[in-house]
């Protein structure tokens, strides 16, 4: 096979494999001397360095691999990573409000108040940097305690959690008295 064709065949193999391929394997598949293959690869390597190429040939001991040029990673990120739309869903908002008003609070307490599992919501809020681990409760299993972050305060324009609007006595009045007791009981039992 002539050199041009051999180079094309090498490119085809390296492309399909994605991973590194031993020169000896290439030589066997193409029925060509390894020395010849190595020489062609050197030539190809130079071609790939040209400006309009987004891939390059990586030399690894006795193997070669095609890979993406690092300078184009930024564009890859835009394509490979779906631009995430961060939104505070209702579930997240509810969880956040509980953490804000009951902090420091455990996962279990949040779950008791919301009546549903909250692992996902808590993790998401941590990912967003709105809440964080603030310690562990001195109770069996030593559960994690969560509180709001400084970033949380900053984005809400308050300087401390003390500044969070409290529930006023009048508002509490609106709650059925007997139910309130129940709630208090439930929350403080922990």
């Amino acid at each position, binding site marked *: 096979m002539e050199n041009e064709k051999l180079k094309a065949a090498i490119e*085809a193999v390296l*492309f*399909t494999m*994605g*991973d590194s391929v031993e020169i000896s394997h290439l030589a066997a598949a193409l029925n060509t001397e390894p020395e010849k293959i190595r020489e062609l690869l050197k030539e190809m390597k130079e071609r790939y360095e040209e400006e309009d190429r987004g891939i390059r040939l990586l030399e690894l001991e006795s193997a070669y691999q095609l*890979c*993406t040029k*690092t300078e184009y*990673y930024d564009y*890859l*990120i835009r394509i*490979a*990573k779906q*631009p*995430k739309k*961060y*939104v*505070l869903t209702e579930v997240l*908002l*509810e969880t*956040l*409000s*509980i953490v*804000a*008003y009951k902090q420091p609070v455990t996962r279990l307490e949040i779950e008791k*108040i*919301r*009546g549903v599992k909250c692992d996902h919501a808590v993790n998401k809020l941590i*990912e*967003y*940097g*709105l809440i964080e681990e603030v310690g562990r409760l001195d109770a069996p299993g030593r559960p994690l305690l969560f509180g709001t972050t400084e*970033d949380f305060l*900053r*984005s*809400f*324009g*308050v300087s401390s959690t003390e500044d*969070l*609007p409290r*529930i006023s006595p009048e*508002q509490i009045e609106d*709650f*059925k008295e*007997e*139910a*309130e007791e*129940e*709630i208090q009981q439930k929350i403080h039992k922990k």
Partner: protein
Amino acid sequence: MGIPVKLPVFEGPLDLLLHLIESNKIDIYDIPIVMITDQYMEYIRTMETRDLNTMSEFLVMAATLLEIKAKLLLPAEVDEEGEEIDPRAELAERLLEYKMYKYMAYELKDRQSLAARALYKEATIPDEVASYIEPVDLEELVGDLTLQKLNEIFKSILRRQEDKIDPVRSKFGDIEKEEVSLEDKMSSVETYLKGHRRFSFRNLLEQEAKKSRLHVIVTFLAVLELMKTGRLTVQQEETFGEILIEAKEPRE
């Protein structure tokens, strides 16, 4: 290359018809209906399929052929332009259309075997790209959310929780789920049944009431369950009268 002649297994009535037409070397637009109908009928008589669906498809075509045969015996109908309508025309159109797609199927097959010689590559996302985490823009995230709103949300949760609390049930205190299981109760009622055969429902509950209210409830449920499975029957002579539980003989 033409359409290869296959083994006498046909994909459908059109396939069979096309085969007959080709093997007889006749013009699709001038089908000798009598001859083709005879051959067609001959073939479906020898068909081995017991599948009614397949068979019915072939029979529908047989009916069409017989209808055309009958029409050919009658004086020809004419269309709006006064031209004679060939009763075979519609069938010929169908056969040609089918033949065209059949031919295209062979074309596609050739294409496919060529295209299968191209190989593709799996995605190879560099670690730096894969591990990239888009920074969260808190300002955008929080948007027009205010503390006041957060406060409203918190209160609504508390209110909702209050709605959930059933005033009756809440008086019981916590119901311990593990304490009394229905399965256990069912087997204890069944054991009791073996020893007593017939007993008062009230007595049974009175014994349970010594333990707890929950025991009474679960025992009641166990009795219902055993009634459903036919292990016992329940009788009551009059309204508010004594309820008697009686064991039923096992089915065998």
